[in-house]
C-alpha cells in the first residue's frame, strides 16, 4: 500500500500520546501473563535437563518417578514422532532431546504432577544414562576440521572445503571491484572482532497452560510473540489439525525475538494428552538462560580502504556466527546489514553459520546486525581518529541515500540516514564539553524491517464504537497505535476504539510479532479495514438518502453528499449510520488481508558519552542520545520507548552481558546475578530525537522502529571508550577486567 498522495495531510490523532488501552490492567496487577492462568484439575509440569554439553542418551528410566504419589505422567522423546519436515524436527528436538543431548540444559524428560513440589521431586528420580561426548562452544574452534561435530549431515552444498561439519551454511553479498577499490585507498585497515552471545533477558520466563481433551481438541495459553506460529508448529508436532488447536497469546512480559519459537508448549501438550488434564508449565530463570535462545556469538574480520579525506573506497567483511546446536540463518542478516549505511562502489560480505554445543539461538532484536555493524563502525571510527576527521562528516560523506544501490542488493527508496546524521550534528550533545577519562562515540544503525502476513477485522458496533481485532501480541504499546490509526482513518475519537489481540480461531493467520512489523503491517491493514468499512457506511447512507453510492464521501467521521449535485442531506455520523445498520443491510465491518511488503528500512545514529575509571576499568555511560527515522511516529511515547529500550539493551551488550561457558561446556552464569543486565543506576536518561522521513510503502509513512536501536550502542560505546582512554577494544563485552587489562597493556 503506497503512501497516501496527500502525504502532507495534517494528522488529527496520529502523533498524539493517548493512554494505552492495557494501562490500567498493567498497573493494577490485573493483566494476565503466561504464568497467571489456571484451569480446574490443572497439573504442574517440570523438565529434566541435561547436565552435559554433549552426550548420547543411552537410556532413560522413569519408573521410580512414575511410582511417586502424585506423579501423573512422564514424557521423553519416545512420546513424540519424528517429523518429516526438517524445520519442525529441529524445533521438536530442541524441546526434547532425541538420542543425543546437544547442550547443557537440553530437555531430556518432563513430568506432570499434582503440584509443582511433587513434579520437582520426581525429576530427581528419573535416571538418565549418558555417554559423554567431546563438545565445542567457541565459534572458531567449532569451524576447524576435527572439531567435535554437533550434528552430522547438516552442511549445505555451497559451504566450501576446509571446515568441520558444524559449518552449515555460507552466504555472500556485495558488488563492485574490491581490488580496484582497495587500490584507490590511502590506507587500508584490517581488524578482527569477537562478540559474546547475549540473552534477550525478558523478565517473564516462558510459561504455558495446555489442555488437550479426549476428542482431539486442545487449548493452549502461552506467552508468545506469535500465537499462529505456535499453533502451526505444535499442531504439526502433535499430529493435530490447526482448527482443533486454539492458541491464545497471554499478555507478554517481553520477548525481543526470544519468544518467536516454542520451547515448552509441545511438551505441555504431550503431557496434557497423556494425562487427560490441563498442564501448566513455567520455566525457571535458570532454564531460560540455559535452554532458550540467546543471540549468536561472533568472530569477524573487517577490511576497509579509505582516502585521507574520508571516502571509503572498498569494504569487505568475513562473519562467523555460532547459533548453537541447530542450523540457523542469522549470518545472512549480518552480511546484508554490515555495510548498509554506506554508499559503496565495491563491497563484499561473506558469512558462515556454525553449530556449537550451546542452546539454539533465537532471534534477538535486529538479529545478526548489531555485531556486524559494531565491527564495521569500529573500523570507520579508527580511520576517523587516524586521519583526524569528524566521525559524522565521514558518515555523511559516505552515507547511503535514496537511489543508493545497497550493499545487499536492493536500491534504497526514501531513507532517513542523512537526516539523522545531520540531526546528530546539530544537536548540542555533539559539541558538549568532555572531562578527563571521558570520551564520545557514535555509530550508525540499520534494520531492514518487515511486513508479512496480516489480517485485521474492524467491527462497527451499533452504538458507534469500534472493535479492532488483530492477531499480533502487543509488545510495546501496539494496541494504542492500532487504535490511533483506526480513529484517524474513521474520524472518531481514540477512546471510541478498542483493539484486541485475538486467538488463532478468531481471526486469520498473522505472522509473528517480529521484524518491527506490527505498527507497519497491522497498521496498514487496519487503515485499509477502516476504508473498507467506510465504503460500506457510505453505501448505507446513500441507500438512506436514495442517491448513488459514488455521490457520498466520508469526512470528519461522517458520510456527506459529495456536492450540491448529489442532493441536500445533513451529514450522517458513524454513530448514526451504525445505529440503523439493522435496517440498512445488517452489521457493518471492514476487513483486510495482506502479505505486506514495502516495510521501508530504518536508520539510526547514537551518540554516547562515557567515563572510564582508570583504576577499575569500569565504564559509566554519562549521556546518551538516540536519533532515528520513524517514518511517521504514530504514538511518539512508544517510539521513544523502543529507542530507549533498544539502546539500554545494546549498552548491556557492549559493557557487561555475556554467556560464559566453562571448560566443561556448561553455562556458568545462568542467573540475573551473574548475567548482569543494566539496572536503573547504571544508566543515564536516554534522550531521543525522532526523525520522520515518510516510508513510501505505508499510507501514513510508518516505518518499523523496534529493532534498529539495539544496533548502534555496541560500536558507539566502543568508540567512546577508545576516545576516552586511547584503547581500542576488539571484543565485547568491554567488561571492567578486560578493559583494565587492555589499558594496562597499552604501555
Amino acid at each position, binding site marked *: 500500500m503506497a503512501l497516501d498522495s496527500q502525504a502532507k495531510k495534517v494528522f488529527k490523532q496520529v502523533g498524539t500520546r493517548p493512554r494505552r488501552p492495557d494501562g490500567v490492567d*498493567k498497573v*493494577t496487577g490485573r493483566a494476565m501473563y503466561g504464568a497467571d492462568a489456571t484451569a480446574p484439575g490443572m497439573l504442574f509440569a517440570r523438565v529434566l535437563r541435561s547436565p552435559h554439553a554433549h552426550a548420547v542418551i543411552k537410556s532413560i528410566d522413569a519408573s521410580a518417578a512414575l511410582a511417586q504419589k502424585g506423579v501423573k505422567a512422564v514424557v521423553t522423546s519416545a512420546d513424540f514422532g519424528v517429523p518429516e519436515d526438517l524445520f519442525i524436527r529441529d524445533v521438536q528436538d530442541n524441546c526434547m532431546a532425541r538420542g543425543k543431548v546437544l547442550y547443557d540444559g537440553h530437555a531430556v524428560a518432563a513430568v506432570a504432577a499434582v503440584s509443582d*513440589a511433587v513434579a520437582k521431586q520426581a525429576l530427581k528420580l528419573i535416571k538418565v544414562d549418558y555417554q559423554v561426548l567431546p563438545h565445542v562452544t567457541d565459534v572458531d574452534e567449532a569451524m576447524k576440521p576435527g572439531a567435535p561435530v554437533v550434528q552430522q549431515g547438516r552442511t549445505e552444498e555451497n559451504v566450501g572445503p576446509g571446515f568441520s561439519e558444524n559449518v552449515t551454511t555460507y552466504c555472500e553479498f556485495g558488488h563492485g571491484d574490491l581490488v580496484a577499490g582497495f587500490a584507490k585507498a590511502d590506507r587500508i585497515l584490517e581488524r578482527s572482532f569477537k562478540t559474546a552471545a547475549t540473552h534477550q533477558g525478558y523478565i517473564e520466563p516462558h510459561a504455558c497452560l495446555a489442555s488437550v481433551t479426549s476428542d482431539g481438541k486442545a487449548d493452549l495459553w502461552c506467552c508468545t510473540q506469535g500465537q499462529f506460529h505456535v499453533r502451526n508448529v505444535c499442531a504439526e508436532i502433535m499430529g493435530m489439525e490447526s482448527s482443533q488447536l486454539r492458541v491464545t497469546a497471554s499478555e507478554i*512480559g*517481553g520477548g525481543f525475538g526470544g519468544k518467536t519459537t516454542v520451547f515448552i508448549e509441545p511438551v505441555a501438550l504431550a503431557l496434557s494428552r497423556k494425562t487427560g488434564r490441563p498442564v501448566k508449565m513455567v520455566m525457571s530463570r535458570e532454564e531460560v538462560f540455559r535452554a532458550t535462545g540467546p543471540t549468536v556469538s561472533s568472530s569477524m574480520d573487517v577490511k576497509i580502504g579509505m582516502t585521507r579525506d574520508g571516502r571509503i573506497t572498498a569494504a569487505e567483511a568475513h562473519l562467523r556466527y555460532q547459533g548453537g546446536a541447530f542450523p540457523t540463518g542469522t549470518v545472512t542478516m549480518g552480511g546484508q546489514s554490515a555495510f548498509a549505511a554506506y554508499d559503496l562502489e565495491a563491497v563484499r560480505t561473506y558469512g558462515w553459520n556454525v553449530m556449537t554445543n550451546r542452546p539454539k539461538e533465537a532471534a534477538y532484536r535486529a538479529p545478526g546486525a548489531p555485531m556486524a555493524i559494531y565491527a564495521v563502525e569500529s573500523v570507520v571510527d579508527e580511520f576517523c581518529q587516524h586521519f583526524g576527521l569528524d566521525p559524522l562528516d565521514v558518515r555523511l560523506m559516505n552515507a547511503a541515500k535514496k537511489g543508493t544501490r545497497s550493499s545487499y542488493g536492493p536500491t534504497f527508496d526514501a531513507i532517513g540516514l542523512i537526516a539523522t546524521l545531520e540531526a546528530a550534528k546539530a544537536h548540542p550533545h555533539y559539541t558538549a564539553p568532555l572531562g578527563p577519562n571521558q570520551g564520545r562515540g557514535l555509530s550508525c544503525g540499520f534494520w531492514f524491517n518487515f511486513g508479512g502476513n496480516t489480517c485485521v477485522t474492524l467491527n462497527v458496533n451499533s452504538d458507534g464504537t469500534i472493535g479492532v481485532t488483530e492477531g499480533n501480541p502487543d509488545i510495546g504499546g501496539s494496541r494504542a497505535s492500532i487504535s490511533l490509526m483506526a480513529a484517524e482513518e474513521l474520524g472518531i475519537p481514540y477512546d471510541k476504539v478498542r483493539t484486541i489481540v485475538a486467538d488463532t480461531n478468531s481471526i486469520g493467520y498473522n505472522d509473528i510479532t517480529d521484524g518491527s512489523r506490527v505498527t507497519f503491517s497491522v497498521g496498514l491493514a487496519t487503515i485499509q479495514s477502516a476504508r473498507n468499512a467506510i465504503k460500506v457506511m457510505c453505501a448505507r447512507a446513500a441507500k438512506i438518502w436514495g442517491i448513488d453510492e459514488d455521490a457520498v464521501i466520508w469526512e470528519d467521521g461522517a458520510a456527506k453528499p459529495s456536492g450540491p449535485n448529489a442532493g441536500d442531506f445533513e451529514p450522517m455520523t458513524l454513530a448514526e449510520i451504525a445505529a440503523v445498520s439493522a435496517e440498512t443491510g445488517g452489521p457493518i465491518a471492514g476487513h483486510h488481508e495482506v502479505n505486506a511488503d514495502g516495510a521501508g528500512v530504518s536508520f539510526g545514529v547514537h551518540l554516547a558519552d562515557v567515563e572510564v575509571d582508570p583504576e577499575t576499568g569500569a565504564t559509566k555511560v554519562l549521556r546518551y542520545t538516540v536519533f532515528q527515522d520513524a517514518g511517521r511516529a504514530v504514538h511518539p511515547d512508544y517510539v521513544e520507548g523502543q529507542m530507549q529500550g533498544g539502546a*539500554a539493551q545494546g549498552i548491556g551488550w557492549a559493557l557487561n552481558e555475556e554467556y560464559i561457558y566453562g571448560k566443561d561446556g556448561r553455562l556458568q552464569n545462568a542467573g540475573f546475578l551473574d548475567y548482569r543486565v543494566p539496572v536503573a543506576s547504571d544508566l543515564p536518561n536516554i534522550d531521543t530525537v525522532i526523525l520522520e522521513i515518510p516510508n513510501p510503502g505505508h499510507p501514513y509513512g510508518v516505518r518499523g522502529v523496534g529493532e534498529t536501536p539495539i544496533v548502534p550502542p555496541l560500536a558507539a560505546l566502543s568508540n567512546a571508550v577508545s576516545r576516552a582512554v586511547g584503547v581500542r577494544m576488539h571484543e565485547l563485552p568491554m567488561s571492567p577486567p578486560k578493559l583494565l587489562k587492555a589499558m594496562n597493556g597499552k604501555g
Partner: protein
Amino acid sequence: MKNIPVSTTINGDPIEFLCGPDETLLEVLRNRLGLTGAKEGCGTGDCGACSVTLNGRLVCSCLVLGAEAEGGEISTVEGLAAGDALHPLQQAFIDHAALQCGVCTPGILVAAKSLLDKNPNPTETEIRYWLAGNLCRCTGYDKIIKAVQIAAEEMRSA
C-alpha cells in the same frame, strides 16, 4: 511435611492460608490466594518483579517464606489503588508511558511507593539506586524514573 496455618493482613484484609514450610510468600500469593500481580522473574531475588512490602519493608516475596508472614501486614500491587482511584504512581505510569510489556510494573510500583513513603522528594539518583533492584528490559528506565518524579511531585502538592 505438614502445612502451616498462617494469619496475615493483605492489602488491609484479614487473610488466613495454609502453606508448606518451604513455600515462598510469592508462591502463596500467586498460587493459593490468586494475587498474581507479583511476578516471578527469577526466584532468586535478582529482578524485583515479585516486590511486596511486609510490615512496611520492601521485600522480594520469592525470598520470604509464606510461614514468615504470620501476623504480618503485606501490601501488594493489587492494594495500591483505592477502589476505582488509581494511586498517583499508577496514573503517572500510564500517563507517561512508563511501561511497555508491563511485567516488571507491579514490582516497580510497589518499590517506588515504598521509596516515596520514606522519601517524598527523592533526587533522580536516589530513585535510580532505589529501583536498582527492579529489572526492566523494555524501557531503559528513562520514562519510569520520570514517572516516579512526576508522581512524587504530585503527591507532595496534594
